[in-house]
């Protein structure tokens, strides 16, 4: 069986309730690693420390982190929308993927958007044009789970 790895990258999300929900989802779906990148927002770090199964890392040097992950053959996937974006269920998630989620109001920072290999979106047919961040983490984790277990 092919070894799959999924990691989560959180860009500047500040709400502790969202962080808590993301943490629980990652534990549930068996994701082992979360990266936190906070360039302009503050956040609560304590609750991540309480959990032993999860490896949480802060990113201070973005370019160094990117080089390191590229050498390990990871692909960066932005949970965002643009003209060439694909839907979650039309996209085959690569073996090693890092899914990037943006902040609550402002979305993914431009410097990270430039680094991403793919842009993937969750289809929306409503008048509200965004999902809550913990909901989108849940849907991505579920879709990745589904693709890897069928």
């Amino acid at each position, binding site marked *: 069986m092919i070894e799959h790895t999924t990691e989560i990258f959180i860009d500047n999300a500040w709400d502790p309730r969202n962080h808590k*929900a993301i943490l*629980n*989802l990652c*534990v*549930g*779906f*068996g994701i082992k690693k979360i990266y936190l990148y906070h360039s302009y927002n503050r956040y609560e770090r304590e609750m991540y420390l309480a959990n032993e199964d999860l490896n949480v890392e802060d990113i201070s040097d973005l370019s160094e982190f990117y080089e390191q992950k590229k050498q390990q053959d990871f692909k960066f996937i932005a949970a965002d929308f643009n003209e060439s974006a694909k839907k979650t*269920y039309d996209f085959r998630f690569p073996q090693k993927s890092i899914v990037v989620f943006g902040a609550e109001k402002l979305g993914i920072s431009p410097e990270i958007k430039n680094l991403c290999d793919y842009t993937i979106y*969750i*289809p*929306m*047919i*409503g*008048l*509200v044009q*965004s*999902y*809550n961040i*913990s*909901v989108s983490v*849940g*849907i991505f984790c*579920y*879709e990745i*789970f*589904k693709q890897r*277990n*069928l």
Partner: protein
Amino acid sequence: MNPRRQRLVETYYNNKIPHIELVVDNFENPHDISAIARSADGLGIKKIHLYYTYIPCPDMQCVGKKSSASANKWIIYEQIDDLAQFYSEKRDYNFVAILQQKKAISLHEYQFNNKTILVVPSPEKGLSPELKCEHFVSLPLLRDALYSTSTATAVTLYEIFSQLGKHLTPLSSLIPRRKRD
């Protein structure tokens, strides 16, 4: 209302997955319902039924504008006054509850029916015993973890969407915005 917006709203109500409805059971915090409404709006749900027995039913037009990102303006809320009557009206529907228990089927293995009512149990007290359901589905979690009702509902609705609603297209592509001069 300008013509574009009128068309947008009309198309919005026709561009839904038909016959999929939600029932929320005694939610003490109305903002939990509006969090569900926000995801339900995006995934093609039109109607949410409110089932309240021991606490007063909240007025969803007045609360949760911010927590639903103004989706509660578009979702239709209906209170269930008489449960027996509701069951007889929805007789040909399949009642499915999101619940982790022994009989629960993992979400990705369950084939949703064209006519489904999804029952969301109360986050505080669990499912009311009088709400009878034919099937139970649960998130395919590898290990025990806490998750919010809004996330669980959203993931379930996403599964329903990927089974029944793939043909639906986003509104913005149906009615493109006119270029500004």
